[in-house]
């Protein structure tokens, strides 16, 4: 599956990309798609399982899966 995560900070995206690659999941950073958010921040798209380590997840705003119907929400931080 293909997942996208948005973050509370650019640093969170840098750390996520690094972690995904270390876990063997091809990952790349890119601007957040407009349809996903009005923020102009950085997101990470990767191939593979959506689960992320706890320290990475602390900076994650939301995780979605890209499907043919659009974005399927997987995770959203509690204190948004």
């Amino acid at each position, binding site marked *: 599956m293909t997942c996208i995560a948005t973050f509370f*900070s*650019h640093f969170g995206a*840098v750390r996520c990309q690094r972690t995904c690659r270390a876990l063997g999941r091809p990952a790349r*950073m*890119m*601007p957040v*798609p407009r349809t996903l958010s*009005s923020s*102009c921040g950085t997101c990470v798209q990767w191939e593979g399982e959506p689960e992320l380590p706890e320290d990475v997840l602390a900076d994650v705003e939301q995780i979605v899966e890209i499907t043919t119907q659009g974005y399927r929400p997987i995770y959203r931080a509690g204190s948004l």
Partner: protein
Amino acid sequence: MQLKGEKTVIVLAGCVIGVLASLLVFWGNPVNMGFCIACFLRDISGALGFHSAAAVQYLRPEIVGLVLGSFLLAVCRKEFSARGGSSPLTRFVLGMLVMIGCLMFLGCPFRMILRIAGGDLNALFGLGGFVCGILAGVFFLNRGYTLRRSYALPRLEGALFPTIMAVLLVLLVAVPSLLRFTEAGGGPGALHAPVLISLAAGLIVGALAQHTRLCMVGGIRDMVLFRESKLLLGFIAVFASTLVCNLILSAVTGTSYFNLGMAGQPVAHTDGLWNFLGMLLAGWGCVLLGGCPLRQLVLSGEGNADSALTVLGLMAGAAVSHNFSLASSADGPTANGKIAVILGLCAVAVIACLGTFRKDRT
């Protein structure tokens, strides 16, 4: 396919914004200043009595329109979200420093484009500094720079800044005697389009910028970080449409809206080094803030209290610049301004290093 559609939309929006910027000059704004977030916030600071530079005092409805246009569209699209708490005081200080850089150059990144489109070659030095500033910021972003995360806030917190803007508009229309205005012929503050036209232009540009996320810093930043050209295309569209509209206005009206050269440009000076360094400071600070002054206004309309505080920092920076003779004039930069820009660059470097290399980061 989706990205291609987004690119088309941002190019069209950039064209509309560029035409409006050019027409605002035709309708009365200072030359090459259809929009200038730094200059307009500086004028508002003056209108509210935060500084006493008599030549630059007017409550610019464009700024009110930008915030309210973004606010209204964000509410309609259910994108209004009150957020804040991401290093607010650091953002305030960075806002002040960005303004000091902008007033050294005499314009924000938006006006830098408009100046180039008006034939002002001095602004090319500013563009060079701006790009270098963004590269400096990206250097730290890639090494983990962060101002830490923001948090959800009560809706009131997000709605306060648009409300303040609406109150300012009421003051301008209903109780102008409370405000300070530049006397006719007294400087750029006396030159302005009619209130309703300025407000409408601001509303349109605010809504378009909210919809497209147009950002003068973001275009170059995303190109460097991701090789993604979408925001940069908006930047280029603003330049191209302003240039074309300036040339058409020149041909139709007989008044020149395009004067190629360096000397005698309106609200500009010819000191290339300080034009460069001013925009170096502005560009670097904007990357650390996450967006240009226009983007900060749009985000504040979406409910971002951190961006609202950044805008207040920009206004405080304008007041400081004029109260302590830091702002340049057509005669060139001041000695105080040069010292302030150097100190500002040092301060931005310290903030960037602390935000990147501190050990207590989570």
